[in-house]
């Protein structure tokens, strides 16, 4: 079965800390995505990557960076965490080889991050 694994289900950090959220997929997917989910705002795309070492900004990239050194792993980095980054973070992956008619984005279970 396909699997997207996020390293932590819950995470509590302090303002100013550097925070790493890790995501690993076992489906050999080219594309990986980081979303932020907030009540009343839905899911908003932070960054995505369509290949190793490639990245593109999504709709809300400010305050975040990403790293993709290996195809299966996509990391989201909060360089200096702030309280307004308290949120649920969802990772997803997909493959352009399969197209929208066959394969949707596969999501991880999310990381609920609290910044104190």
């Amino acid at each position, binding site marked *: 079965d396909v699997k997207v694994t996020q390293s932590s289900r819950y995470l509590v950090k302090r303002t100013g800390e550097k925070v790493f959220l890790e995501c690993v997929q076992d489906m050999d997917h080219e594309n990986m995505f980081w979303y932020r989910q907030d009540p*009343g705002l839905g899911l*908003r*795309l932070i960054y*995505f990557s369509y290949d190793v070492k490639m990245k593109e900004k*999504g709709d809300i990239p400010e305050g975040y960076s990403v790293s993709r050194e290996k195809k299966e792993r996509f990391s989201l980095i909060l360089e200096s965490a702030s309280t307004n980054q308290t949120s*649920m973070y969802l990772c997803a992956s*997909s493959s352009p080889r399969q197209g929208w*008619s066959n394969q949707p*984005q596969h999501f991880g279970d999310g990381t609920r991050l609290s910044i104190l």
Partner: protein
Amino acid sequence: AQTVTQSQPEMSVQEAETVTLSCTYDTSESDYYLFWYKQPPSRQMILVIRQEAYKQQNATENRFSVNFQKAAKSFSLKISDSQLGDAAMYFCAYAANFGNEKLTFGTGTRLTIIP
């Protein structure tokens, strides 16, 4: 830019009844996909149903069906014979059928099933 609007933050339905969740979208593209995702309390996003814009026939998946009105840019989800396990957040999403496969999501509708 594409936008997806879900105007019903919360809905409730009696078990075994039928409920319709609304979604409208805005795009200048002619070739795209629309999706409904379900997010239960376990948080796992589950694809419920998808619709290709070029297909006139509305998609159906068991108890789930859509009413796709391309000219009106409307994409509603109908759940028949509602079950307790249908309780979840439901997100409508859009993707253009080219490029980097970005999904644009609506703000979600929380569906409660009343026993």
